[in-house]
């Protein structure tokens, strides 16, 4: 391969195309291996507590993937993403428990409501230059949090409310076996990850990355940057809503306002930044790390947010691109060194 490339100038371009095709195949392979891991993991992990934690990793991964689309690709920040998580959870919780809907149409209705709220918030603010969306979402976060606590008739207030399970054509997802819910949630994770990977490598995905780099250059190529930002925001809210519904119907069969507050919004932000904005693997790394930190810090309550602050500060100094990128760079560096050593040894041998 190398010899022909050196003697003839023409095949260089073809090699380039091959290299890029190989890179895309490698990415597909990475996603597939994640799925394989998801399938076999419950066989290795029998402890139901850990299964429970891994379900939460899945929910956080869905949330972080959506937020990653907004932050890493569209270059906008949401400081109230837990609110969309909450709207999704309560909308489907109320529709099923109070009004007796089936969980599937309830999920769809929750999705519509969440997207509508996101669109109403995003449309006016994303037409302006600057981080107005961050301010507006902060407000949404506060409002939703207050509504969940105060509208006791509807939400049960701070005491929370009971929810139902998910029934599909008369077949109910069993609540006593967490493994079923594990596969259900991770099935969603897989589907939503594929959709995300497809979206990023497409015309609208490139439009988002383009406007993140240079809004002016994107507009001059015909990209309606404001509209694309609004769409990215709505999709990120939709991901949060789906995670909310999955949370509401999980085996606890109970929701309260606490997980949908400011602390969760910040945790999601840290997941995306820690893992690495704008990468496919960033949310995975972030969701796994932060979920374990959350579990570990559960007894310490408010201290959680202090830890997030520390993580952000250290990260900005040491690895501003996030863990996924940093580890990737380390991997490439290591491979190059090994390659060079091998080449040196082969050269010495000949």
């Amino acid at each position: 391969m190398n010899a022909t490339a050196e003697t003839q100038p023409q095949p260089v371009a073809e090699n380039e195309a091959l290299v890029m095709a190989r890179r895309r195949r490698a990415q597909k392979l990475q996603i597939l291996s994640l799925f394989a891991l998801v399938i076999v993991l419950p066989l290795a992990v029998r402890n139901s507590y850990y299964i429970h934690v891994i379900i939460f990793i899945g929910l956080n991964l869905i949330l972080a993937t959506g937020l990653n689309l907004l932050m890493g690709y569209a270059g906008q920040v949401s400081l109230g993403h837990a609110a969309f998580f909450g709207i999704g959870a309560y909308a489907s919780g109320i529709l099923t428990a109070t009004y007796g809907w089936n969980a599937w149409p309830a999920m769809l209705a929750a999705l519509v409501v969440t997207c509508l709220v996101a669109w109403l918030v995003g449309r006016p603010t994303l037409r302006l230059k600057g981080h107005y969306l961050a301010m507006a979402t902060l407000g949404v976060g506060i409002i939703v949090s207050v509504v969940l606590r105060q509208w006791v008739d509807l939400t049960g207030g701070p005491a929370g409310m009971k929810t139902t399970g998910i029934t599909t054509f008369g077949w109910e997802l069993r609540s006593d076996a967490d493994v079923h819910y594990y596969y259900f949630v991770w099935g969603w994770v897989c589907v939503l990850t594929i959709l995300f990977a497809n979206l990023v490598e497409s015309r609208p995905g490139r439009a988002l990355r383009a406007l993140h780099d240079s809004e002016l250059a994107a507009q001059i190529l015909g990209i309606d940057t404001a509209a694309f930002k609004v769409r990215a925001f709505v999709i990120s809210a939709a991901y949060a809503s789906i995670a909310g519904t999955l949370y509401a119907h999980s085996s606890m069969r109970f929701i309260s306002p606490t997980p949908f507050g400011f602390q969760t919004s910040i945790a999601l932000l840290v997941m995306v930044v820690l893992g690495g904005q704008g990468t496919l693997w960033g949310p995975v790394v972030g969701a796994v790390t932060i979920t374990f930190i959350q579990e570990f810090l559960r007894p310490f309550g408010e201290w959680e947010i202090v830890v997030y602050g520390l993580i952000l500060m250290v990260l900005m100094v040491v690895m501003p691109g996030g863990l996924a990128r940093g580890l990737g760079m380390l991997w490439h560096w290591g491979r190059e060194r090994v390659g060079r050593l091998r080449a040196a040894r082969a050269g010495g041998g000949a």
Partner: protein
Amino acid sequence: MSAPRARALLQVSELSKTFGGLEAVSDVSFEVREGQIKALIGPNGAGKTTIFNLLTSVLPADAGSAQYDGHELLRLPTYRVAALGIGRTFQTSLLFDQMTVLENVMVGHHLHGHTNMITAALRIFGASAEEREYRELAMDALGNAGLADLAGRPASELPIGQRRLVEVARALASEPRLLLMDEPAAGLNMRETERMGEIIQQTREGGVTVLLVEHDMSLVMSISDEILVLDGGRRLAEGPPEQIRNDERVLAAYLGEEALD
């Protein structure tokens, strides 16, 4: 090519813009005819880039009009200007630095694609086919520009000469009818400048009208059909290169700046 009878593709009338008290562009009128290479020249601060910014609605104009193919440009948002078939390159080569060279050119195809977020995510209604098609088109475009072996490189790694070539390839991928080029030869060495001159001429031969801001006088004189000279935001002279070269007002304006030719 530049038959004087060709119709005006762009008709700018009495265009004005002031920054604070400074008249950056005042009362400038000119036209660009279909198939022309027209150059805007003038000393620094003459208002050349400002005119590009007004035409593409990067800045709002204070007064005047710009008729392009039956449309008034001045009150359209930038992305709508692009949709009418107007491309632009920038003085500083605004590439998408986080993306590869190939992806940059693929963004150039944006206007001609149809895939939206839903069809892209689900890979339905021809989304995959469109993606493949634009990948191949972009690869061909890079091949024609002699940049094929850079396709997978991040744009941020390119030296200035290649950045300019990629930016032109990206602008051409949007298949504009009128291309505004802001100092395409700035920062290029002699060989690269010559190559850029060839590319501009090939672009015109491909049916694209070119409006050019450029400081490199030998490039301007050799490829332009017509030159508009600005000074202090005002129109100073207009005509074919031979006439501009010998215009005394132009020579006076450039005195102490740089010699013509």
